[in-house]
């Protein structure tokens, strides 16, 4: 098997084994209710992680997503609760602003030739700062549309519910998978992460793609903010602090190479699920504390980064021992 599938296989194995062990200890974990809650509780994280996967696949990083989530939630709350707008146009305005915001970051990264982390760091400060300009308190959203949306859910056999949010996350993942693996844009993202210089030589429109990647990441963070506001019925400027780290961790644990070019959108879904499962397990256990999540995630992160390093070193070493299909010489 190709060494590049190892991280994905490792992720899936870890998830399956860990889940099986958890179920052996708490049989109640084996239910669609748990699954449904896992989807609902991690919906905003998942939606953000789809964008982050594109960013990391391209060899970049986006530290601004947590702030953009908070900004989006608060802006929707302000538009709906204070200005009396219907949520749908409020969503549209919010998503538009977020997309432009991300596009600007992408343009700065490309044209100023600065590392993505510092540009998106500025973006992180900026988005959080603007959010606090809008409000310093939590703004409740009380709108019939929100209640209406919340009544959509699908009851799985066993009583578990896929809520609107959970379903939306799955839909975003589906679209993400298609875009990543079935569009030219997706291939450009992989190409840039593989080798930006070669990509440019092969005719990949690097400027346009960079801008597109960060615009999409911020768009999805904005969408995630909307999901978050549906989840909490409010907009809160201190929401989603540290979510950028959780999403980056989920993407890497999902088997995507932090230096870009290699990874699968589906892996990120598993990465999110592993994080969610650890939290669920801790809740079930009752005696463990939530900080264990961070340590386990950190440990997994370390394991995956080292594994990727080893894989890269190994694939360099076999340059000469590669399978060597010989083209038939002819003249």
């Amino acid at each position, binding site marked *: 098997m190709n060494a590049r599938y190892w991280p994905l296989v490792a992720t899936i194995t870890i998830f399956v084994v860990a889940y099986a062990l958890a179920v052996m200890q708490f049989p109640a974990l084996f239910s669609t209710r748990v699954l449904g809650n896992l989807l609902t509780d991690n919906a905003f994280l998942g939606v953000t992680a789809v964008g982050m996967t594109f960013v990391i696949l391209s060899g970049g990083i986006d530290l601004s997503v947590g702030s953009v989530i908070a900004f989006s939630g608060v802006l929707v709350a302000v538009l709906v609760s204070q200005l009396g707008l219907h949520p749908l146009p409020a969503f549209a305005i919010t998503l538009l602003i977020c997309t432009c915001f991300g596009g600007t970051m992408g343009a700065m990264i490309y044209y100023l030739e600065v590392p993505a982390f510092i540009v998106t760091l500025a973006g992180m400060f900026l988005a959080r*700062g603007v959010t606090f300009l809008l409000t310093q308190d939590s703004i409740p959203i009380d709108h019939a549309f929100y209640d209406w949306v919340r009544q959509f859910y699908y009851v799985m056999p066993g009583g578990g519910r896929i809520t609107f949010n959970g379903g939306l996350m799955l839909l975003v993942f589906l679209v993400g998978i298609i875009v990543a693996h079935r569009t030219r844009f997706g291939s450009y993202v992989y190409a840039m992460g593989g080798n930006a210089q070669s990509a440019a030589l092969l005719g990949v429109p690097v400027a346009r793609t960079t801008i597109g990647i960060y615009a999409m990441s911020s768009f999805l963070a904005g969408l995630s903010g909307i999901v978050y506001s549906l989840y909490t019925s409010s907009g809160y400027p201190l929401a989603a602090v540290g979510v950028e780290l959780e999403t980056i961790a989920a993407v890497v644990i999902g088997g995507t190479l932090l230096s870009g070019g290699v990874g699968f959108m589906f892996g990120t879904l598993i990465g999110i699920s592993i994080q969610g499962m650890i939290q669920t397990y801790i809740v079930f256990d009752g005696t463990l504390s939530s900080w264990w999540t*961070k340590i386990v995630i950190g440990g997994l992160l370390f394991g995956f980064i080292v594994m990727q*390093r080893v894989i890269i070193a190994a694939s360099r070493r076999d340059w000469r021992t590669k399978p060597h299909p010989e083209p038939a010489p002819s003249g």
Partner: protein
Amino acid sequence: MTRPMRSLVKPQFVALALILLLNWILFPGFFSFFVRDGRIYGSLIDVLNRGAPVAILAIGMTAVIATRGIDLSVGAVMAIAGAVAATMVGDGTPLFIVLMAALGVGLLCGLWNGTLVAVLGLQPIIATLILMVAGRGIAQTITEGFIVTFNDPGLIFLGSGAMLGLPTPIIIMATLAVLATAVFRLTALGLFVQSIGVNESASTYAGLRSRALLIGVYAFAGFCAATSGIIAAADIRGADANNVGLWLELDAILAVVIGGTSLMGGRFSIPMSVVGALIIQAMNTGILVSGFPPEFNLLVKAALIIVILVVQSPLAGRIWYFVAPSRERPPDDRPSRTTATSAEGGPK
């Protein structure tokens, strides 16, 4: 290093003076201070005192950035060191041992980062991300999830006591800044660190121990972070693993960048990074006294980063080159890491 007098009119000093002046306009009592019980009080002292933790982080971060690295984990290391100090002092361990242990843990964290960077060859941002994610969890296992409070007068003294009429954090910050500057400038260490940041491969060829130096630099950053963490814990008389030092790594990076050390490594100045940290704190204070919410300074920081990025960018350099063609510019700056490695490690 020869330091001509022009260093006194550096833009950082002008910026600091302007911000302080602005603070004074907003709050006329800004520059006044008074002495009570042999201790000086006043807003200016406050800026120094509040700015101390970030300034101390920035001291270590300066050295890391000078090698063309970055350390994202310093905030988490602060939390770990604070947790160690608070827990041990609560168990009645003598203060000296407590401090040694907390600083030692910081060093250890730094050694971990340094090993990942220098030996495993991970990109600094990735290597230090691991501890950034896991560090707070580790801190919480130490405190077992509680905010561990303490009332050991010795430890508290480090956070809110006073020496020579000044709050202890200021004294610690100044001592550390002077010592670090002295060690880097009076020995050849500063030159070596710069040399690695400018061109690691050429430095190795010239006979430098690049790996050992890199590890040492990250260990130093860990030590500084631990110092900062002890002060922060002592200040609130407790270890809050969740919130202490949160996002301070970013402030520290910003302080270093404001201080004029390039993220591309090379020339660095510890005193200027301290000035950078004080600029950030003076802005925080100014925003507070003028009645804006404290989060407002996030906007100001964002604006600062953007301005610095634009000014330092190659694009601006090219434009500047056109505007002022008389200035000398090299045809091609230092080699990028990618070219350096591709020249050596091509598939053969």
